[in-house]
């Protein structure tokens, strides 16, 4: 039987140390496809979060009645039902956003992050833990989506929170921040390759923060700093090689 994790650990895992997008690298298809603006990222992130919470809860509830042989089809069925519900809700209440996100809402079904949590966590834990996990993982995923979206939007078209009215109504039209008329967007950031490079940069930033936190007590000693450098280099080298082999 798996250990029962504490709520604080669940939250920390979901938001940071096991972030589904930045650490587990799951759900990359919607992540990379819709994050050309921060609002798109937020919309898809929230939809995913809702599905994740509901699916985690349902899977946890039925975990004792599902035979292991058929669990995956059943999980997918559960997830698909919720996705359909969310899709229809968005169709009803956020039609413009629905139009922008398009195919990627139904594709939430195939988001590995959701089935991953159902399989790895919800199917083994009680309802309360499963829901907390769903909330934490969903918010962590949403944050990564928004961060990536904001980054790409800012670099790619020089704006931030454009089209906020799609989600927050007409009052949000004025929320858009802009780098100014003179900024000539970097088209690459909005195109698919930009999503990969942007995600890479986000992971770099996260690892950098982790490293700083980990080495803070020993920051004074030079040997530790050097070791960090060499491991960093090794990682760079192996990353390069993997890329080359891939």
């Amino acid at each position, binding site marked *: 039987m798996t250990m029962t994790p504490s709520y604080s650990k669940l939250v920390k895992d979901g938001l940071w140390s096991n972030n589904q997008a930045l650490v587990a690298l799951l759900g990359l298809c919607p992540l990379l496809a819709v994050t050309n603006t921060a609002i798109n990222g937020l919309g898809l992130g929230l939809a995913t979060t809702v599905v994740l919470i509901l699916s985690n809860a349902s899977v946890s509830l039925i975990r004792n009645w599902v035979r292991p042989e058929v669990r995956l089809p059943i999980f997918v069925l559960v997830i698909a039902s919720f996705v359909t519900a969310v899709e229809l809700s968005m169709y009803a209440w956020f039609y413009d956003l629905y139009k922008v996100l398009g195919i990627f809402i139904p594709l939430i079904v195939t988001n590995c992050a959701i089935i991953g949590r159902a399989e790895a966590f919800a199917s083994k834990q009680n309802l309360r833990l499963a829901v907390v996990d769903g909330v934490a993982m969903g918010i962590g995923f949403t944050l990564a989506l928004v961060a990536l979206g904001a980054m790409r939007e800012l670099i790619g078209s020089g704006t931030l929170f454009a089209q906020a009215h799609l989600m927050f109504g007409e009052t949000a039209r004025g929320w858009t921040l802009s780098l100014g008329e003179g900024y*000539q967007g*970097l*088209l*690459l*950031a909005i*195109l698919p*390759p930009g999503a990969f*490079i942007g995600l*890479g940069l986000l992971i770099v930033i996260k690892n950098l923060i982790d490293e700083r936190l980990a080495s803070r007590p020993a920051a004074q000693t030079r040997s530790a*700093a*050097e070791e960090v*450098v060499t491991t*960093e*280099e090794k990682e*760079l*080298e192996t*990353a*390069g*090689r993997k*890329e*080359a*082999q891939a």
Partner: protein
Amino acid sequence: MQFPTRTSPYTARLYRVNQTMGWVLLALLPGIGAMWFYFGWGVVINIALASATVLACEAWVMHLRKRPVGPVLGDLSALVTAVLLAISVPPLLPWWMTVLGSAFAILLVKQVYGGLGYNAFNPAMAGYVFLLISYPVEMTAWIPPSVIQENPLTLLDTLRIIFFGTLPAGLSWDAITMATPQDLVRSELELKQTFSEIQQGPLWGGLGGRGWEWVGLWFLLGGLLLLYKRVIRWYIPLSMLGSLFLLATLFHLIDPDLYPSGTFHLFTGATILGAFFIATDPVTACTTKRGQLLFGASIGMLIYVIRTWGGYPDAVAFAVLLLNMAAPTIDHYTQPRVFGHQRKGEL
């Protein structure tokens, strides 16, 4: 008597990396001279901008990695990247785009993978593609060769355009710039012109685009120098030019009105430059003999396919990057037979 010890061999080494890179830079000079003659000062300014950027970027990364800066700048590989990128972009490109492209090439394509020897993609071509898909308008605005320019730009004019975007009095942007022959052929063909009709235009020379053909020939001279000095081997250039020429000729024979000739493909765009200076980058190319033949031939084929049926003006950069990705696999399947072994593991 005591002596220091070391491992064999003890002979003086024959080559050095910076010597290799130095030969490449030297061999680029004739072509660069021709470009300067036909396309003005912008070429030189771009080279200066790109070189300064790459050196600054390399120095910065070495500082971050806490490594000595001298040997890395001294290997001259970054300068080769800078020059290749600078002569690939249009001569009047705004200064910051050149800088951005060079920085991208060094930081995200070369150093993130571990620096010289570890990058999977050709940095110069990745930088070029980065700029091309980010700023398609600026990146396709070439200037016509000086021989047909009505108002040749002075050095000062060029500097003003590049750094401040201010055009000389009385000249519009359209009056200065012009599509490349490659672009021209594509758009005219779409307008149902025949290839022979297009060839009557003012951009046309004897072999390919006017001016371009001479640039290509001078780069060819530099390439031959590299071959002579054994800095590069003939496998990649020959197979690349050969496959491109054969494919183009084949289609040209099928329908001369619709498909430009083989010589046109060889002497326009970056074909010659790509064959001798870009595809032959040892770090990102194949390393076995048969692998290099396959590598070059595939690039030539892809160039033809992308030029003829693709959406971008020139194809060398895309073809090279695509084959960079395939290089490790090709190398794996083209290992030579080892002395005393049977042939095995072949494709």
